[in-house]
């Protein structure tokens, strides 16, 4: 095989591989992204319908209610609270008044069915998404007052 052919074969093979990988990546990225929506945005109807997304904020005080393995609670950004239903075992640090992030879908009745509740592993740590939601809500409240 001539060296020119060899080079063309190598480059062609490389491009094909990269093209294939890029297709895989973009495809997978498209179908596996979860947007993050604050509870206030959920109340304003900005949540993507029928799609998986994440909400974050604080677990509202006094909102946890257990019904065997199904847990009802509310996630709040201090302005608005979204009722959440989750079946399964919650992470150790899931507590009222602490930050939490839940992933799932919104139901037509406005409740959020979570398929996953994110754990954090340090009491002093606040998930950045939860912090963001609370900051947003407090900023909005300040602008209202002025």
């Amino acid at each position, binding site marked *: *095989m001539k*060296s020119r052919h*060899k080079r063309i*074969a*190598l480059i062609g093979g*490389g491009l094909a*591989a*990269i093209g294939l*990988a890029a297709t*895989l*990546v973009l*495809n*997978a*990225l498209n*179908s*596996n*992204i*979860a*947007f*993050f929506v604050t509870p206030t945005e959920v109340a304003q109807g900005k949540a993507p319908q029928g799609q998986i997304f*994440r909400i974050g904020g604080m677990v509202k005080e006094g909102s946890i209610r*257990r019904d*065997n*393995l199904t847990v009802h609670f509310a996630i709040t950004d201090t302005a608005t609270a979204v009722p959440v239903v989750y*079946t*399964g*075992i*919650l992470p*150790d*640090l899931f*507590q009222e008044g602490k930050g939490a*992030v839940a*992933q799932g879908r919104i139901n037509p009745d406005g409740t959020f069915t979570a398929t996953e509740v*994110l*754990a*954090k*592993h*340090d*009491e*002093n*740590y*606040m*998930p*950045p*998404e939860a912090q*963001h939601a609370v900051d947003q809500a407090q900023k909005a409240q300040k602008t209202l007052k002025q």
Partner: protein
Amino acid sequence: MIPELGHFALILAFFVALVQGVLPLVGAHKNRADWIAVARPATAATFLLVGVSFACLTWAFYVNDFSVEYVAGHSNTQLPLMYRLSAVWGGHEGSLLLWVFMLVGWAAAVAAFSRQLPAAMVARVLGVLGLVTVGLMAFVILTSNPFDRLMSPPAEGRSLNPLLQDPGLIYHPPLLYMGYVGMAVAYAFAMAALLAGQLDAAWARWSRPWTTVAWVFLTLGIALGSWWAYYELGWGGWWFWDPVENASFMPWLVATALIHSLAVTEKRGSFKNWTVLLAIAAFSLSLLGTFLVRSGVLTSVHAFATDPKRGLFILILLAIVVGASLLLFAARAPKVSLGGRFELVSRETFLLVNNVLLVVACGAVLLGTLYPLIVDAFGGGKISVGPPYFNAVFIPIMLPLLVLVALGPVARWKQADLPAMLKKLWPAAVVAVAAGIVLPMLAGKWHAYVALALALVGWMTAALVLQTIERFKAGSPTASWWGMQLAHFGLAVMVVGIAMVSTYEEERDVRMEPGETVSVGGHTFKFHGVRESRGPNYTADVGDFDVFLANGKFLRKLYPEKRDYDTSQMPMTEAAIDPGFTRDVYVSLAEPLSPDKENGPWAVRVYFKPFVGWIWGGSLLMALGGLLAAADRRYRIRAKSSSAVPAGAPA
């Protein structure tokens, strides 16, 4: 007084490292033997000083000196000694000091075990390591000083995060850091070779054992981290595609590419530019990993309360390292010879494809990890990329690699005969088909995914046997050849574990009253309620379970715990696991479902995990293979001439 001594030693070490970073490099450039000679003593002094500093911090933990802010934040009088000592690296400041300590440790090892290398080369390597040390030490001293004192020391410390009070803390961070930081050595060798304008087979030969050993540590560190997460986090998963896991996995992928590419550079003098780029990438990704872990920009199990200033500092350091290295590379690369030519079908090509696949896989992981940051930075809102993305991308990229593992080692350098290779390997293809059809049926249910994986395992394992027979015809193999075989076998073992556990695992979350049973994977668990028990610094609710086999025979008792640490609001789940060669059974207590903890119902999670242990067993075999390869006799033989090209290679 002792903490001040530690702080002082650290600052002194900073200046000695500055000397280590500047004088030898300038000396090697100007050919001044006296400046070159500074490299070894300066490296030894840096190592000693950082060692003193590290010992001082350890002492502060040993005596629980709560006037030191870092100790007060991570220790406690009730904390058992073992965890008090490993708490030294249980937080941000101390873990960075450990990072620096390991870095100077690697440099000292290079200084000690490179007697056969030319003095100028050693000076350059140690010089580059010195500069890296300076950067990281500045980070520790300026932003994360572990010796900061408190004006009014508390009577009691805040103690260590309960999650970290586990033997995993003793082994996992040091091993992982050894691997991370070891990449700095591979990087330093590449930079030294670039600086000297001497990218040749000799450089690759010197760099190889160091790179391989760093890779071994990284492999062990990641595997132990995965195992720790499996038993400690109580979720029963072994890999979550968490940003911080990815942060350690990306350097591993590139380092794996690097050790294969170094083989080509050493044996054939080719791929030099590529090898240098990989060395730069591996170290840069280690730094990026540190940035991701330490800056808290991503939601992760490893993220701790953080300070944005710190993230910025590492980002700047990363920019300097990448920028300077690439500039140097751009200046020197055009002068590098291309090395031995090779045909389209040759071992070089197989290793090239291996490299492309590993780097593309790393790129895909990098994209998935950073994508949320990129989207957020451009105002696209906050998003997250889930594990399905990584599985969908990573697995298809890895499959061809598993096919090639069988082909590469039987291919000849320069020009291989594909029909002859296939003729040699056809029995492996038969084994592959048989394994793909039969083994999944033995496991219970035939499943396309597991059939494909087991067929590949059959292919790899049979090819390993055929390769060994073939190799013995040519005389008895070297240690490094055995190392390669062992590592490749480890890969096969790991694939078995991954395929089996992801296909056949069973998980059940159930509500259990005392006396009730639940079955999973042919094992039956009987719950006998919970009793309270007292540990050194916690109270635990201990669940009492009997495990029975499918035939009703009693297997053993399991005692999962739910702990409440005295110093923390945070309950801790301690899973109970019965490990086995072909399966683990796993039970963890979630929470009481009634106020009566002792006799009331509990939420319980049970798992059946077939072959999960093979994942870590496979990693261990890979690491052993790496050690065997690094121990090869030829690395210890003095290089005859610094630009030796192996016989038979065209100039």
